[in-house]
């Protein structure tokens, strides 16, 4: 089945990028879809969706154009509210606790597993979309299922990969980005020696900080818990990872210890940082602002493979969940199904310019991944990510350990030398045991 043509995508995304509301073609398609849809909204239904504030403007424009078309075609009024992640997650939790609030929340990570009993089972939507679009990636299914029930729909993932300046990498003696951790350490040293250092966030940066520090831990064979949720972070593998990070941090740009999520974007765009980890937003900003000296000289790479011998990366999931308190669950299901149908999903994927990655296999060859080779790493986001619980279960303990920056702090302590790797690992073990106590 052909799910997109390049012309369709360019047409729709150009409209979206220009801020045009859904055109007649989109509206007609929406009406046709609504007539045949297996999900019939309730009479006079209206829904409220709360989402995270966009990072790439064209993504939001594409999203709003699709929402508008859905409303016109189905008669379902859709109200969209936006919140930063820090506010969105507590609001989602409060909605679950009190049984009032938005019908749909487009949230982050495995949050649906924190209040599964408050959510509508989405098996019909998941089966419909999975059957039609080549199936879900296993990690997407793992994140959204509890037992046999789908408690959310894995709408998008967001990749977080090394961002680097090509000329600086070549000057450091590398023709291509190193594929292993030994080569990566040599690259860091070379960059520092040439006065073009790299840097990674060591502050309490919930996105970038968690992504790169979990790669350090996992790529060396360390993990927070085993399959039975016993805390095993204080291991020789973790300590090896921490020794590695201590060596790596000697080559960091000064100031990384205080970096939160936005600092590395700024330092990279200012030309002070030549290697960091991020989504595609640095590249998108450089293109948008015509900073060709940056955009033409930068690229993205997969995370190097460590001693475990296979990719161990962490990327963020953004699932959509429908609350049981919604008076219009069918309208909410219809909305999610509509958004993930090819014509709409193509447009949203295109508008996100690589910031968001697909969880359904049918979108592997989408033009957003082929028209610009610098986006290629982000195509494989879902295929390469490991859940933040690693081999443990999803739930309150995994979420709390992640939110309390246990791994970030442990890596920062070892990187800055405020604790030895052994002390940092032992401290993390103690902190994590508090959350995993039975």
């Amino acid at each position, binding site marked *: 089945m052909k799910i997109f043509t390049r012309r369709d995508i360019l047409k729709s995304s150009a409209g979206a990028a220009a801020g045009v509301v859904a055109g007649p073609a989109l509206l007609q398609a929406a009406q046709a879809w609504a007539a045949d849809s297996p999900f019939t909204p309730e009479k006079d239904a209206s829904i409220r969706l709360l989402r995270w504030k966009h990072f790439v403007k064209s993504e939001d424009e594409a999203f709003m154009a699709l929402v508008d078309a859905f409303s016109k075609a189905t008669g379902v009024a859709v109200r969209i509210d936006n919140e930063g992640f820090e506010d969105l997650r507590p609001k989602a*939790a409060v909605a679950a606790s009190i049984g009032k609030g938005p019908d749909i929340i487009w949230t982050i990570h495995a949050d649906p597993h924190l*209040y599964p009993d408050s959510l509508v089972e989405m098996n019909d939507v998941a089966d419909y979309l999975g059957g039609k679009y080549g199936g879900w990636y296993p990690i997407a299914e793992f994140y959204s299922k509890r037992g046999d029930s789908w408690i959310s729909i894995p709408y998008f993932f967001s990749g977080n990969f090394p961002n680097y300046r090509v000329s600086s990498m070549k000057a450091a003696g590398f023709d291509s980005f190193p594929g292993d951790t030994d080569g990566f350490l040599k690259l860091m040293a070379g960059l520092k020696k040439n006065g073009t250092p790299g840097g990674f966030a060591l502050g309490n940066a919930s996105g970038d900080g968690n992504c790169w520090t979990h790669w350090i831990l996992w790529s060396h064979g360390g993990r927070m818990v085993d399959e039975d949720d016993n805390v095993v972070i204080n291991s020789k593998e973790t300590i090896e990872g921490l020794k590695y990070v201590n060596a790596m941090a000697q080559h960091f740009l*000064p*100031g990384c210890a*205080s970096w939160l999520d936005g600092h590395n974007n700024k330092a990279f765009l200012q030309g002070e940082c030549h290697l960091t980890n991020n989504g595609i937003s640095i590249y998108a900003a450089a293109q948008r602002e015509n900073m060709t000296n940056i955009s033409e000289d930068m690229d993205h790479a997969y995370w190097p493979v460590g001693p475990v011998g296979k990719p161990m990366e962490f990327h963020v999931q953004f699932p959509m969940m429908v609350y049981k308190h919604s008076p219009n669950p069918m309208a909410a299901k219809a909305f999610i199904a509509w958004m993930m149908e090819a014509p709409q999903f193509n447009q949203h994927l295109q508008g996100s310019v690589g910031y968001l990655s697909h969880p359904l296999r049918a979108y592997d060859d989408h033009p957003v991944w082929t028209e610009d080779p610098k986006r290629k790493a982000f195509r494989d986001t879902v295929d390469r990510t490991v859940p933040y619980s690693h081999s443990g279960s999803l739930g309150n303990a995994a*979420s709390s350990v992640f*939110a*309390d920056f246990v791994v970030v*702090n442990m890596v920062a302590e070892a990187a*800055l030398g405020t604790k030895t790797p052994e002390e940092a690992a032992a401290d993390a073990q103690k902190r994590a045991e508090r959350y995993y106590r039975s």
Partner: protein
Amino acid sequence: MAVLSASGREVQQVDWRKRLLHNRTFLGLLFMLPAAALLLTFLTFPLGYGVWISLTDEKVGRGGAFVGLENYGWLFEDSVFWLSVFNTFLYTVVASIIKFVLGLWLAMLLNHHLPFKAFLRAIVLMPFIVPTVLSALAFWWIYDSQDSVISWILIELGLMDETIDFLGDPWNARWSVIAANIWRGIPFVAITLLAGLQTISPSLYEAATIDGASEWQRFRHITLPLLTPIIAVVMTFSVLFTFTDFQLIWVMTRGGPINATHLMATLSYQRAIVGGSLGEGAAIATAMIPFLLAAILFSYFGLQRRKWQQGGRDD
């Protein structure tokens, strides 16, 4: 036995109501009822509920079971919690003392006859008026690891070669956030003390001057005793605001680096709201109450003893 007629009962009932409406105790209670209802609904209930949650293992999205003092027991063994207690005390004590000294000094300067007095007083209030988040963002830039304006000036003046790591080094970060809090808190102290200074009769200073009192003696024996009730109130509020500060830290450091600037309030939020452990977060917040009560009691029983203010000796 006397039997009352219907009209007799009515008269007795009217008398009863009349007596009640003329009863000062009853009226006092009646008039206090709306305020009491408001306080109970919006102050006592949330406080009590918070304390109750701290005694449960409640998580976000699901209710909790009563676990007694277990959350407090775990906190007692938690190094990050004790670090946040240390940070909170350091932050509160240092910032409050400096805010008081600088605020009092500024108030005394502004109490003199100055040109553009009203304008200057308005300017002094600026840091207090600016939304906290905005001032935190300004300090975020001032302390930026790459683009700090302070570092830039020092480098341009040839006094330094590289930028200062304001928020990356644990102790630098602590002093930096304290400085930001002082900048923001001085106006409150200064303007309130200025109001207090203006209530002191100039004739007292005139009399003291005639008696040959020095400037220090006038300050020590007139200004300070008469200002003490205001100082007590101002410092109580100042300590409370500083002890419970959240926004400045959350915007600037999120409690980092390596939890070096986590205050009890920010750690409570991180654990309860971001991390979902409502019981534990509530326990951290509840653990702040004894310290806050101690600050209030010190202010009222220590600084407001009237005999001392009037030059006598306390019993």
